[in-house]
């Protein structure tokens, strides 16, 4: 069965410092993995997706994530946080042959001046 665990419900960083949002997944088969961002009162936007072509995935706005099968992790990182990065971030898993998208509980990122 698929599941997603986002290890931190809230993360707070200072502007210009690195961001790390942690995600672990459970999947019986080779999964598809996504990160979505939701800004306040906005819809969900895709940040990046894991396509099995490369373990390090680059997304929009300077974000990237690394797929580590041995650790069943797909952590989201950014070298330098910007105030506009403050939002809710969701890690999502979709299993091959099983099309339901399973969302993590979300991580709220706060960025301080």
């Amino acid at each position, binding site marked *: 069965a698929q599941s997603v665990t986002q290890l931190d419900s809230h993360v707070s960083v200072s502007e210009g410092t690195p961001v790390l949002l942690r995600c672990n997944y459970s999947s019986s088969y080779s999964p*598809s993995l*996504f990160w*979505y961002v939701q800004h306040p009162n*906005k*819809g*969900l*936007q*895709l940040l990046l*997706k*894991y*396509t*099995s072509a490369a373990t390090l995935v680059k997304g929009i706005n300077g974000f990237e994530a690394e797929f580590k099968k041995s650790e069943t992790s797909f952590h989201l990182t950014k070298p330098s946080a910007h105030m506009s990065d403050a939002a809710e971030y*969701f890690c999502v898993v*979709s299993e*091959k*042959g099983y*099309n*339901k*998208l*399973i*969302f*993590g*509980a*979300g991580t709220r990122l706060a960025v301080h001046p």
Partner: protein
Amino acid sequence: GAGVSQSPSNKVTEKGKDVELRCDPISGHTALYWYRQSLGQGLEFLIYFQGNSAPDKSGLPSDRFSAERTGGSVSTLTIQRTQQEDSAVYLCASRQDPGQGVRNTEAFFGQGTRLTVV
């Protein structure tokens, strides 16, 4: 249209009334999902449609909830006899056929319908 469209954007209804929420997916997308997001919570899966296959209704919280998708395009989520706990943002998403070879396609989300039951 260019994206997933949901209507209405906001709906206030009295407890016990029925409501219908509409979703227009991206043209050509065969997969359609409904999710529910309660205040400060993650996304709760409700139902999934894929082409002409029987929908996956495993996430519907009670028999007051139902959904249909006509002609493989527009979908309507109906909540009968609404309760206060039904208050949430209802999100619709569509996705290119996630069959073999395109399983990594992302879902595109609408802006949601904010339902308030008073």
